[in-house]
């Protein structure tokens, strides 16, 4: 059966709309700010045969590009092998196991079998980042776990809704194992409701076009997306490209971890391997295979943003499984840092490899860390415990024609940071400053954007601080002659004494009492191109804006300036 080009285009945009509506419904109804405000969630449609990605919401958090096709595939295989109960209409499975096609434990996936004429036509699935999943550290970002059991509750695929009925028993097991459990019901209901919105929209799509036409269109769209990705790849000259990126440490052993990516361009396709990458690590900076693969997809989508997200677009990317490296963690390796930090280093390595080949499309390295700072304690004034998170942006890299963006969000995110006025209302903290981090953008013909500098003081009681950040050891890479951006910095001031974490960007269990302070500076972006080529007017404007001191500019650009 062939399909006319108009129907094909209409179905393409309709499938996209189904996913976008699921995304919107999920975050509008969600409870946790991390989903509602930071959009740390994603929704998509997956094939019934093998879980391949059919369409994914454009408003989903970038880190989830392509991830759910791995978890859906594992679910389908486990059902086939009889390891998981077979689906029935109205069922919704819940799963968060990292080793079954997942990310870290906090990313909880729901999957709904979509039925047409008594058969599973496709799967609808979504992921939401839960604010807590149990484990040793509130929020789940342990800096020094050595096994997944320390990171939280691990759920195999089980039916949370059985033929439309909510399983209170399973839910009560979950609630007994996570913090601030009483609010989670709001997220669970929102997450399930989003899938039901998708189900309803998909039903009307089938009613309009017919199931057969839809099936044919899905297959055709997959082939078209592959064709489109090949077209884009053909802009890259034939040859081999290598990029590296450094993770500060795994949080347990204070040694840098290296990601080396080797890319070969041949016949409109890319062959990607990680030869030369560090071995599995003791701490939580391991990545599971699904996350490693989707980090590559994510990086490619940042480079070619208009290729639709579908399994077809990934087809021309041949990724060799990185066995024996920390990018292919197996049970029970701890993995809580994979989605937030390691994924961004993988993307950075890919950007570094491809910038010489695509200098107009790939920028210098962005800050590339989520800047996760968590503070947990008891507020004596309110008489209740609290867990506070501060995520931060940083500078983006310069591009072929612009300076980097200041305080951009992480490579894997699209989140807004919470207002200071909200943080101070909810938590016993006082911000002493929240400022542009002067001097942090790497010099270049187009300089990097600036990071943020903030200082938080604990006002009362006691609390425990933890950090999972990165780029403390080396700054985001400058490219084509540009200079690296400024490194991440964390300083804890206790009783007036400064303490710098041994692992620079990762630590946990730091006891604070009232009056103690934490000061964080997030990385600036890397510079792009030779600093000597930067127009003097722009250098002077940077001086006027007090972005740098005269000395810093004189040194970086070799020009004489006075403040």
């Amino acid at each position, binding site marked *: 059966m062939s399909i006319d*080009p*108009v129907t094909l*285009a*209409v179905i393409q*945009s309709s499938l996209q*709309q189904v996913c976008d*509506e699921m995304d*919107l*419904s999920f975050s*509008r*109804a969600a*409870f946790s*700010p991390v989903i*509602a*405000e930071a959009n740390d969630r994603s929704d998509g449609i997956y094939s019934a045969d093998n879980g391949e990605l059919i369409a994914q919401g454009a*408003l989903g958090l*970038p880190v989830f590009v392509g991830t759910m096709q791995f978890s859906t595939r594992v679910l389908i295989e486990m059902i086939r092998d009889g390891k998981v109960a077979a689906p029935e209409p109205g069922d919704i499975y819940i799963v968060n196991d990292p080793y079954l096609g997942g990310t870290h434990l906090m990313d909880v996936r729901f999957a709904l079998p979509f039925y047409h004429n008594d058969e599973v036509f496709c799967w609808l699935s979504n992921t939401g980042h839960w604010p807590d999943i149990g484990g040793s550290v509130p929020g789940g970002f342990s800096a020094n776990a050595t096994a997944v059991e320390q990171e939280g509750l691990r759920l195999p695929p089980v039916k949370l809704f059985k033929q439309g009925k909510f399983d209170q028993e399973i839910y009560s097991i979950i609630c007994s194992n996570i913090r*601030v459990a*009483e*609010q989670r*019901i*709001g997220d669970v*209901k*929102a997450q399930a*409701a989003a899938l039901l919105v998708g189900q309803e929209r998909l039903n009307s799509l089938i009613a309009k076009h017919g199931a057969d036409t839809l099936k044919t269109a899905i297959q055709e769209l997959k082939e*078209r997306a592959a*064709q*489109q990705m090949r*077209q*884009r790849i053909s802009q890259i000259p034939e040859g081999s490209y290598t990029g590296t990126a450094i993770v500060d440490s795994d949080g347990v052993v204070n040694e840098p971890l290296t990601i080396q990516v080797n890319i070969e361009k041949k016949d409109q396709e890319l062959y990607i391997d990680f030869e030369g990458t560090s071995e599995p690590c003791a701490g939580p900076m391991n990545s599971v295979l699904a996350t490693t693969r989707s980090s590559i997809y994510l990086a490619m989508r*940042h480079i070619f*943003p*208009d290729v639709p997200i579908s399994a077809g677009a990934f087809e021309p990317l041949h990724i060799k499984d990185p066995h024996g490296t920390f990018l292919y963690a197996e049970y029970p390796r701890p993995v809580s840092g994979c989605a937030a930090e390691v994924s961004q280093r993988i993307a950075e390595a890919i950007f570094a490899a491809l910038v010489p080949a695509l200098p107009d499309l790939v*920028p210098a390295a*962005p800050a590339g860390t989520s800047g996760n700072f968590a503070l947990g304690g008891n507020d004596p004034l309110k008489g209740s415990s609290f867990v506070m998170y501060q*995520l931060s*942006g940083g500078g*983006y890299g310069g*591009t072929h024609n*612009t300076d*980097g*963006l200041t*305080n*951009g*969000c992480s490579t894997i995110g*699209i989140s807004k*940071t919470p*207002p*200071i*006025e909200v943080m101070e*209302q909810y938590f016993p903290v*006082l*911000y*002493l*400053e*929240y*400022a542009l981090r002067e001097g942090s953008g790497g010099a270049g013909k187009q300089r990097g954007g600036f990071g*943020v500098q903030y200082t938080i003081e604990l006002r009362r009681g006691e609390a425990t601080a933890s950090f999972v950040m990165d780029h403390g050891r080396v700054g985001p890479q400058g490219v084509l002659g540009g200079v690296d951006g400024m490194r991440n910095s964390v300083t804890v001031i206790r009783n007036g004494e400064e303490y710098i974490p041994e692992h620079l960007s990762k630590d946990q269990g730091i006891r604070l009492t009232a009056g103690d302070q934490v000061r964080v500076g997030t990385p600036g972006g890397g510079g792009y191109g030779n600093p000597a080529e930067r127009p003097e007017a722009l250098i002077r404007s940077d001086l006027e*804006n*007090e972005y740098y001191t005269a000395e810093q500019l004189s040194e970086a650009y070799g020009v004489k300036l006075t403040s």
Partner: protein
Amino acid sequence: MKQSHIIAGIDVGGTFTDLIIFDQSGKLTLGKTATTVDNQAIGVMNSLKESEVAINTIDTLVHGTTTTTNAVLERKLAKTGMITTRGFRDIIELGRRTRPQPYGMYGNFTPLIPRTLRLEVSERVDASGKILIPLDEQQVRDAVTRLIDAGCESLVIHFLHAYANTDHENRALEIAASLWPNNYITAGHSLLSEYREYERGVTASVNALVQPILHRYVDRLQSELRSGGYDKDLLVMNGNGGMVSAGLVANEAAKTVMSGPASGVMAAAYTAKRAGIDQIVTYDMGGTSTDVALILDAIPAVSSELEVEYAMPIHLPMVDVRTIGSGGGSIASVDDAGLLQVGPESAGATPGPICYGRGGTRVTISDANLALGRLNNQSVTSVESSVSIDDIQTAIKKQIADPLGISVAEAAGAVLTIANNKMAGAVRMVSLSKGYDPRDFALFAFGGAGPLHAVAIAKELSIPKVLIPARPGLTNALGCIVADVRHDFVNTINQPLDAVESASVAEVCNAQKQRGDELIASESVAIESIEYRHSADMQFIGQTHLLNVAIPSIDISTEELQQRFEEVYFNRFHVELNEIRANLVNLNTSVIGSRPEIELSQLIDPANRESRLESAQINTRKVWFNSDWHNTPVYDRQRLPLDAIISGPAVLEQMDTTIIIEPDCTARSDTDGNLLVELSQ
């Protein structure tokens, strides 16, 4: 009020300045003149001159202006300084950590006020309003002097937590006022007493940046009007869909930034209500943008969370109009996957669609409409230079038909099919997907291109009827005439509902009500009655999103408020959460002075109406519907009989738009000159 009250509405748009003068004796004057971009007042005076209505006979003149909109979008702003809490001058430069697009690690963001004009002073208040560091008044004085010396014309005072304690901002305001050479000083809390420092700071900054510009503009226009003989108060449209006296408008200039689309929605609500329709999705499609709004129970939905552009929020209550696309100028092309795409790229106003003859070479939605006979191809030659229908067909053939292997007509039809599908999806996302049943709604189509697409889009959305007003191209000017006088107030409470006394709800609402009464009394506008609308912004504890809950009476108990909130929540999300308690975030009051009823039946002159439908027919032309050409009657809308019933397919032409009645639909006209199109189910 005297017998023949004359009211004039003049709305300045991107291309045209539209005028409606309504005389209660029954006379109606309409006008369309060119907008004068650099000084809109010239165009306004021209339109009055052309109307041939003596200016001194006009009793009320209501004006919609894009002066501040353009100033913001083009960044032609007054030089402005900011005084802020020490340690926080970068708040409006850092934003809230995003990037303009989900994919692509780049983006530009220029702060509204440059870094060197943002000065810090020692002071600090905490979230409960407690003063931690007293205001250093000498530092304020020094900062004010420095900003005056730097040549600033406007000033913003923006302190952390000023919504919780206004003392420091008020004191700094006093000090600044004693030194500042003019009145252009905005204190963050006075415009918006709501938490969230970035949004409040940007809102205050926008206000200060456009205040002198709006003030000068309004002054100039008022003096021109005065010398023309109009000595009454000039009224200016606000983004909340109400009007405000020219003497007050510049104080809260930020409220005018999004006023244009708001007037259109007010006119839609008014027109539809007269036609007996209360549930509306408005669809305003022009050459460069498509705007959508929801009207529920005849009241336009209001939002306090709109953004003018990326990272430029204006958090003031405004009619919730969402831009969903770039209108008739959206470009159609075949991508490298061989798939036809329409938008988001746009030809804009220049070079514009091929048919504009301004040098555009890429096929747009407007060009497809022409190629299919939906637009009169005579109108191609009437635009700026000579582009023939052949040129358009050649472009469609080359850019779309050949790559897809289909005919030119099929290709143009495909462009519309895909455009309508995408626009319908976008309309649903910003309106009906909030939990409404499309079958309860009518689509209200206006703007130059709205009535061309509305019937097809309603079909996609399962909306059963389309309402096309008498003057789709003059809707904003009509909005000026029918709008009410309106003032909105917001106060942040942000406490669990359990901790709030019922009496304090009444107290806050009462204070807001009084402030509104005082403002209305200071304006010299004829109003018939004053209406008060109270509402609460609420959320479940732990949530960040807000839902607006109407408060029917200020004596409401907090229990009833909780119950109402749960109802609204369930209707919106179909989720029941009786396990969790609610938070009361804001209390809002709108004080609305209703103006005298306006009769719309003169919008189409009844004297010109024919008695039989056939007499209103201009000719027949070939128009493409459902994959084929149909001989389609073309009618002159102005001449339709009052009770005309038209079966589709049909084309209706009028001065400012073309209406397409798709096959299998029936259109009826009513006494106000509206067309109501019923879709076949």
